[in-house]
């Protein structure tokens, strides 16, 4: 197995964009791959952070398997890029390294934000697309299914996925969701138009929030944003009314002064009658007076508060990393041993077949000499012969399995061929 590709590690976003595949392009590329490299399995993984082409070949197709340059040429030709432009940017991993890389990617340990959950779904989609377009085979089936299993192990046996590290994700997952059980009946008020507000809103909308009010000093700008975010715009002078009915507030104005002072909030608080309020103040300088956070039922978080939580999560994640890497190593070792062991299949079959024929001959001769033996006795004799063959074959088969852990046991296979006069 081999992987050729590029990722956010060392490749510019400009080049990644040129090499990226849309869903339709990926299907077209896989179709073309089948025609250019017949019999060679392929899975194409294309996300905003990486473009990777996994390929594998077994048996007769092995001779047609492309090397790094050929894969680079295929990618360049598809995107109409000069091969030399991408030649240095692409990495190539083969055999166990390729499998380890796939497992690392699927487990989100190679992602820009380690532990982000989207990559597993993207790997699944890439594998499904390749399967639907008939580009997968025994090796890629085994490798991708093992990768999904490995990713699930990492997710269940470590906390690496549960620790968010971006400010909006921490704000929603570690704080907002700990205050509110559901968001579909909550009123979200957005002040300003910062990028982080948009990302936070996306997280909230993913969790069901749909009642969104946008407040901006410019009503036109508020109306534009409200349309984009499927909410309603409110004039700046109605801010107090909006805050009085809000459950969550995301604030990112560029104001140089405090937008909501403690005194102003006192009036708003009376109108709220003690309802819990989650305020995410992402503005610098802050939009809300920090003293507001001391009021009962008000949970006020600034960028600094969330940065501290992000750092703590990042440290927790780092602590989990060795355990996750151990799982990757275990699963890679297990997969490669299985793969190498499969290469010994023909030898094992020949060994079994070679012993089967003399067994049957000797058994027939013995039973002929014992005509008085009843069916039960004959059955016992047959079983004894089978047990004997199993015991005789066990040491060489076990040796093959043991040797397969390190690679294809070619020397041992040659020795067995000579010892037992087996033919390819």
């Amino acid at each position: 197995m081999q992987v050729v590709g590029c990722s956010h590690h060392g490749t510019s976003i400009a080049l990644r964009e040129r090499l990226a595949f849309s869903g339709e392009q990926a299907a077209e590329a896989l179709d073309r791959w089948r025609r250019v490299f017949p019999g060679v399995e392929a899975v194409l993984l294309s996300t905003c952070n990486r473009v990777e082409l996994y390929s594998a070949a077994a048996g007769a197709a092995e001779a047609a398997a492309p090397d790094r340059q050929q894969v680079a040429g295929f990618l360049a030709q598809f995107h109409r890029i000069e091969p030399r432009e991408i030649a240095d940017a692409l990495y190539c991993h083969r055999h166990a390294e390729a499998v380890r890389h796939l497992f690392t990617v699927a487990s989100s340990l190679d992602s820009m934000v380690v532990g982000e959950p989207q990559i597993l779904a993207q790997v699944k989609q890439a594998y499904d697309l390749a399967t639907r377009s008939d580009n997968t085979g025994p090796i890629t089936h085994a490798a991708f299914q093992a990768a999904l299993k490995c990713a699930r192990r990492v997710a269940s046996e470590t906390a690496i996925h549960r620790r968010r590290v971006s400010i909006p994700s921490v704000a929603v997952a570690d704080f907002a969701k700990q205050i509110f059980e559901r968001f579909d009946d909550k009123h979200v008020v957005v002040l300003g138009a910062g990028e982080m507000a948009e990302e936070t809103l996306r997280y909230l909308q993913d969790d069901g929030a749909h009642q969104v009010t946008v407040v901006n000093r410019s009503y036109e700008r508020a109306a534009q944003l409200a349309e984009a975010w499927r909410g309603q715009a409110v004039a700046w002078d109605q801010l107090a009314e909006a805050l009085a009915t809000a459950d969550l507030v995301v604030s990112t104005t560029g104001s140089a002064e405090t937008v909501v002072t403690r005194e102003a909030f006192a009036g708003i608080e009376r109108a709220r009658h003690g309802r819990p309020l989650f305020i995410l103040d992402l503005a610098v300088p802050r939009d809300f007076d920090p003293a507001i956070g001391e009021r009962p039922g008000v949970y006020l978080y600034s960028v600094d508060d969330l940065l501290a939580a992000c750092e703590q999560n990042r440290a927790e994640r780092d602590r989990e990393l060795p355990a996750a890497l151990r799982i990757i190593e275990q699963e890679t070792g297990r997969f490669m041993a299985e793969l190498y062991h499969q290469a010994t299949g023909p030898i094992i079959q020949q060994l079994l077949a070679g012993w089967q024929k003399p067994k049957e001959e000797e058994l027939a001769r013995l039973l002929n000499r014992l005509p008085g033996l009843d069916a039960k006795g004959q059955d016992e004799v047959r079983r004894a012969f089978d047990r004997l063959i199993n015991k005789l074959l066990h040491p060489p088969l076990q040796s093959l399995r043991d040797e397969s852990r390190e690679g294809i046991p070619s020397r041992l296979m040659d020795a067995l061929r000579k010892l037992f006069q087996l033919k390819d």
Partner: protein
Amino acid sequence: MLAGVQIICFAASYAVAFILEVSRMVFRSGVRGALMLGFAAAGLVAHTAYLYHRAVNTPGSPLSSEQDWYLIAAWLLVAVYLYLMWYHPRQSFGLFLLPLVLALIGVGKLLARSEPFAREPASRVWGLIHGTAILLATVTVLVGFAAGVMYLHQDRRLKRKLPPPRGVRLPSLEWLARVNGRALVVAVLMLVVGVVSGVVLSALRRAGGLDLLPWHDPVVFATLVMLLWLLSAVAITARYPIQRQGRKVAYLTLVSFVFLAVALAAMLLLDTAHGGKNQDNTARAAVGWVVPAAKAAGFTHVIAESDCSGSRFRVPGRPHNVHSHTEA
């Protein structure tokens, strides 16, 4: 085979489930959730078998003794725990509920009396209603208490802007406030049913020519104060919609737990007609189906002896001529 099931069997299972729950804070494991559920469920099966065995072999069971009462309360709490764990496997409910379960079993085993009481058919139905209602009120107050503690812990963490501690995930404040509010209302309803059925039982006793339980009995007094407190709490919180109750209800349920603890302690430790420490077991044995439930519940004012004929049993503080009706 059921006779071989001892209290220590299910208590140990719950203790292991609790230790596994605590271990969430120390290390991660892919099989721990299944193990926790397995140990808690195995404990519940053994617990059920134990109570069933007692119910079959002990006249008057269930609720035939103080110990039964504590064990049934623990059984209900474990059922609540398993239900919550099944639907919210990542939440750390066990950290708050399992200690209460173990405490109930511990008190039942070490402090509560296990002798069953003789039956008294005339009041059987009212006795069962009384005991069951008080039992459910107690379990509900305990659930509310656990939810209240979780609420305050979660609220404190969120106010201090700390991310969730390793291995400890609690439900949202909104969920906890809702459970808290409902627990308060259900506790009041159950307690009202318990007290009213206790009054009926008292009337039956009076018709039988027996004395009423004095209102100043520590258990009766604590129970009535608790009922008044819960009614006031419900009245206070009814002024606000559920999403505005939050900390108020959490504190109210904590205070309710204190009243419950006082009532239970009074029943176990003081000389009260509800089965105080100095009370004669033989007299208690005569109470029948009415008092086992009521006495064990510890909140009723039904006196500790009862018989429709009204002639054979002692009133506390008076000389008596008792025929033991204890059924082992």
